[in-house]
């Protein structure tokens, strides 16, 4: 691994020197390693530039030559039994090398019209690889998880196994990890990571004042025991499960899947093992001890979009639904782009089109609506949740309305239809009949061990020999905490995906996760207890130059909050948050006319009917998601579209976000209400500002900051005193009842200061 590290180091240094010359757009030259590694150096090149025509896809294979297997590469060429694509240790006789270096463009590979080109560096790597014997290794992610030795590092910095792996790699690039972050910032970080909420003032006070060495661990345990933990974990799972409150096409009718969402929160809080959590969702209807809870969980596979347009061709959209379930299975649980094998064999990964439809077959046995039902809230198969059901069997469903709720679920009928390969993926172009099975390169689906249904599929998934399930999930939990996974392409563990930055760490954590019965809370705790996690987020020029992307984890990356957390933070710190868990989704403040302008005018979601009272202060995960017209704040802050399974959100920065932070009534109302609260306290202006700052930033205000803000307050107080109408107008925001008899000038001035604090960069950053 050291070689890669060195390359990156050189890359970093060159980058800096390029910059000094102002040549931002030039790609620095990397140094070819002394010993090339197939998985880490060679295969990414072959996969990206060659496999498209000389890879796993048999139908598109050119000249019958495949370079993804040694047999293919070492064998004789189609037209010439004395010529070979690759002859290990012989550059002259390796036709591949001759072709990639051909002077004659008609002979050059990749062909000019492919728009692909090998760089000098890439040619050198391939040359060296052939010279060193052209050895093929199995793809790392398809090899079973083996628990590696923990590297020996000798440092007081280390707190648990994670740190040994991280420190070991940092040593290779001559970077030092940061010291542990200050207590206040650490508390903010861990509270947000476990519950999605900032620490309460009481928690902060307690943690700051104690010198108990176990204090941090106690806080972690306390947070893991909070019911808000389930909400935080659910917010990512809802992206994975493409959860929404509407069907997603055209008139985009209302649906009622929220009891399923309540179950997800409950399952996380009960600390179901990942195995149980997923098994219920994929096969709860097939379990020997099935009950209404396990069946409700299968709603996971009904969260996909449903087309209720009058004109649709029924079978086309049934196939579309089964396709969605299959693709979601691939991405969410295996980290594979299975969908690429629907129309043809996968171009890069060893997944054939037949194997795609083998996997498809598991989800194809599901009962589909007999015919288009029109625009209904829930389409069969479904369960009906009555008050009695809630009371006796599903106490976690937060049902307040007297009406029964219908939730879509999965119901199997084994002999309902035969599954065919669909040629070119076209819904009515049926090919060969296929049986339920899975891609063999991952793990053979042995029908003596696993039943040929979705329950068998989950057994296959959670077989400890399955190389992907644990790695993929552990990686995503890591991603949600550090901003990037150990494998950065968390949705693609295949050949085109990113290689792990810490393969040993990933393997160790994955093996450990399985050994400990897929215990999710334990995994989260393990990560947040590490010194790697607890480091401060300060960076210096050296760290930025050598590792601008923080792949080596020499510090904690500062991460902007998710759209939900931005909201939750404002509500929690202002005291507005309604901590109720679950229930129907809510419609909060939103500029007028968005739904109306975008809809056809038909259906109950044509007009936006905002909720009032306590419902306005629910957490972000409960915001109503109409798929075709997403909540604008969420959309602007990179929330997932819920169009299909998503495992990673973007994090962008745009001026539209600044406009929201400045002008969204949600934030303004939070500032107003907190101002009113503090105005009532018998305290000085200094104290009020100190208190507001502490609540919002979860840290003590610095003298310089205080001086600036207090000065600003007096300036604003004077300005509003000179124009009382402006003060009156400014504080008239939000539906939360106003403080009677308030001094409008003072409320407005303090509100302006608080609103400024809400707009600070650090406020919505997990640092």
């Amino acid at each position, binding site marked *: 691994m050291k070689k890669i590290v060195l390359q990156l180091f050189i890359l970093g240094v060159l980058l800096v020197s390029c910059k000094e010359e102002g040549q931002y757009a030039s790609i620095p030259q990397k140094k070819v390693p002394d010993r090339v590694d197939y998985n880490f150096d060679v295969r990414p090149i072959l996969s990206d530039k060659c496999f498209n025509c000389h890879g796993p896809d048999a139908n598109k294979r050119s000249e019958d030559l495949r370079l993804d297997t040694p047999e293919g590469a070492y064998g004789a060429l189609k037209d010439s039994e004395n010529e070979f694509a690759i002859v290990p240790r012989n550059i002259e006789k390796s036709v591949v090398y001759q072709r990639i270096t051909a002077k004659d463009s008609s002979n050059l590979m990749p062909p000019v019209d492919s728009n692909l080109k090998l760089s000098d560096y890439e040619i050198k790597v391939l040359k060296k690889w052939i010279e060193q014997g052209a050895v093929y290794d199995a793809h790392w992610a398809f090899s079973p998880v083996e628990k590696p030795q923990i590297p020996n590092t000798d440092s007081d910095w280390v707190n648990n196994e994670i740190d040994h792996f991280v420190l070991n790699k940092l040593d290779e690039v001559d970077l030092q990890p940061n010291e542990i972050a200050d207590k206040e910032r650490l508390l903010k970080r861990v509270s947000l990571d476990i519950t999605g909420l900032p620490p309460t003032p009481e928690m902060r006070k307690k943690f700051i004042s104690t010198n108990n060495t176990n204090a941090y661990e106690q806080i972690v345990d306390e947070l893991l025991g909070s019911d808000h933990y389930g909400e935080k974990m659910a917010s990512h799972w809802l992206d994975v499960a493409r959860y929404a409150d509407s069907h997603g096409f055209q008139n*985009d009718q209302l649906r009622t899947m929220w009891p399923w969402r309540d179950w997800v929160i409950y399952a996380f809080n009960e600390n179901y093992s990942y195995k149980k959590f997923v098994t219920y969702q994929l096969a709860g209807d097939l379990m020997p001890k099935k009950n209404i809870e396990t069946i409700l969980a299968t709603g996971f596979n009904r969260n996909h979009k449903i087309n209720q347009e009058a004109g649709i061709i029924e079978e086309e959209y049934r196939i579309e639904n089964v396709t969605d379930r299959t693709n979601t299975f691939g991405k969410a649980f295996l980290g594979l782009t299975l969908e690429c094998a629907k129309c043809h064999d996968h171009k890069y990964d060893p997944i054939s089109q037949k194997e795609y439809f083998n996997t498809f077959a598991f989800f194809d046995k599901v009962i589909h609506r007999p015919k288009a039902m029109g625009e209904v809230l829930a389409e069969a198969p479904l369960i009906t949740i009555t008050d009695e059901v809630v009371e006796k069997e599903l106490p976690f469903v937060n049902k307040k309305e007297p009406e029964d709720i219908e939730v879509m679920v999965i119901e199997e009928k084994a002999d309902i239809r035969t599954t065919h390969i669909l040629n070119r993926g076209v819904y009515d172009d049926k090919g060969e009949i296929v049986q339920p099975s899975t891609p063999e390169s991952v793990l053979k689906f042995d029908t003596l061990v696993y039943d040929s249904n979705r329950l068998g599929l989950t057994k296959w998934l959670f077989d400890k020999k399955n190389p992907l399930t644990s790695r993929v999930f552990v990686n995503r939990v890591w991603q949600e905490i550090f901003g990037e996974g150990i494998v950065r392409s968390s949705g693609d563990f295949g*050949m085109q995906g990113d290689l792990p930055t810490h393969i040993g760490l990933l393997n160790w954590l994955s093996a450990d996760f399985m050994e400990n019965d897929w215990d999710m809370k334990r995994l989260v705790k393990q990560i947040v207890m590490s010194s790697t996690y607890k480091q401060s987020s300060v960076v210096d020029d050296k760290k930025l*130059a050598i590792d601008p992307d923080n792949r080596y984890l020499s510090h904690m990356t500062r991460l902007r909050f998710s759209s939900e957390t931005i909201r939750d933070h404002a509500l929690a710190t202002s005291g507005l948050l309604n901590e109720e868990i679950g229930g129907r989704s809510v419609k909060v403040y939103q500029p007028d006319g*968005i739904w109306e302008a975008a809809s*056809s005018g038909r259906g109950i979601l044509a007009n936006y009917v905002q909720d009032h009272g306590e419902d306005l202060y629910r957490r972000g995960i409960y915001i109503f998601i109409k798929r*075709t017209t997403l909540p604008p704040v969420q959309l602007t802050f990179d929330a997932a579209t819920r*169009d299909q399974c998503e495992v990673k959100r973007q994090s962008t920065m745009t001026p539209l976000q600044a406009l929201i932070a*400045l*002008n969204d009534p949600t934030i303004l109302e939070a500032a107003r209400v907190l101002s009113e609260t503090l105005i009532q306290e018998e305290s000085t202006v200094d104290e009020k500002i100190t208190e507001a700052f502490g609540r919002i930033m979860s840290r003590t205000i610095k003298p310089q900051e205080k001086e600036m803000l207090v000065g600003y307050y007096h300036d604003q107080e004077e300005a509003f005193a000179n124009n009382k109408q402006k003060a009156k107008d400014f504080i008239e925001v939000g539906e939360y009842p106003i403080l009677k008899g308030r001094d409008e000038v003072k409320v407005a001035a303090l509100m302006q200061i608080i609103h400024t604090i809400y707009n600070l960069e650090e406020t919505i950053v997990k640092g």
Partner: protein
Amino acid sequence: MDKEVFEHYLNTNRRHFLGKMAMGMGGVALGSLLMPDLLTGKKAAEEQLPLGLKHFAAKAKRIILLVQNGAPSQLETFDYKPKLNDMFGQELPPSIRGEQKLTGMTAGQESFPLVGSKFSFKQYGESGTWVSELLPNIAKITDDICMIKSMHTDAINHDPALTFMQTGAQVGNRPSIGSWFSYGLGSENQNLPAYCVLLSKGKGNGQGAYSKLWSNGFLDSSHQGVQLSASEDPILYLNDPKGMDRETRRKMLDHLASLNQLGYDEFGDPEIPAKIKQYEMAFRMQTAVPEITDVSKEPDHIKKMYGPDCMVPGTYAANCLLARKLSESGVRFVQLYHQGWDQHNDLVGEIKGQAKDVDMASAALITDLKQRGLLDETLVIWSGEFGRTNYCQGKLTKDNYGRDHHPRCFSIFMAGGGVKAGMSYGKTDELGYNIVESPVHIHDLHATIMHLMGLDHEKLTHKHLGRRFRLTDVHGHVVKDILA
């Protein structure tokens, strides 16, 4: 350098980059305008495009796409089929229909009686382009436009067809065409988004137009279409809250910047100065956008040309006028959606109002651009998502009828930006069901539009989950015959 490589390079080194920027080193354009200010100097954005990104000399610099949402009938507008009038009430011959799947709305119909247009057609201009009486103003500009009567698509229902037209795929979270241009070319204006969207509703049977259609897909969300509305907030959350004047806002931003600077001193994270810049750009947008969206200062002859509706915010006419202003100000891609073209029944009654809504302003937009000398560098496209059947849906009477969705042929027109003017391209059969000459698929249209903008549709790619994606997927041919 490849666009994709370039963006990758930017992303992987973003923090480092921004760090240097904060220290005053500029010089690179990012794809979109929503981020550009931190990276650009004073040169026009176009001069700073990554090397090799422009694949050809561009004919057009900007696009205005007028989406006739719901699918206008080609048979009542541009594709003249007198034979259908002769064969009124006769069955659609099965040999013509072939294997065409029908929508769930007419699949159960026992009979498919042919019906011709109730509206008369004439040829106009030197080009002799056929236009129906429903569109008298468009008829006057036929020598400025290129009519394509041989468009076809894969989808037969609104949502998939619109999504296909917008993204090159019927399903899946792919980037919209405007996002691709924002990604590929960036914007020409520092204070406006590269991709703007305007919505209006006609009087006819409507189908929704929603944010999913202008989504950035897997591209960076700075390439998202930004919807401008007719309300007081032309961009969502643009206006300051009540009680807040510009001076107070300015003061707040100054305090924010000073406090954020303290954070930067402590953490050294280059994202912090970047955020300060975002707030500054937001502040500038607050003045720049309302200036653009205020059409009241347009001279009378312009108002007259677009028609009285152009002073009514939120109408198609007002949006056409606004589109000109936005485009003129450097917005790369302006997209209008006008709902109401879905005439399954009462076609005769509904289409009149629908045509009236768009006729004058569509023609005015093209004329206006031409008079300003902008038409040469602006590509205007007028199109629905598919066509309509030559047979009647529902009850056929002598006076009225309806038409179902038809993917096999429809008519669109383009103007300016490097397309031939005064041309009719492609032909359908005499019953207006199948294309008999020069078919143009949606992928071909996309390839052609990109070509006119100086981009090779096979080269503008973005790598996502291991695969290089294009707007045209693995298809598409530039329609060379219509290039000027």
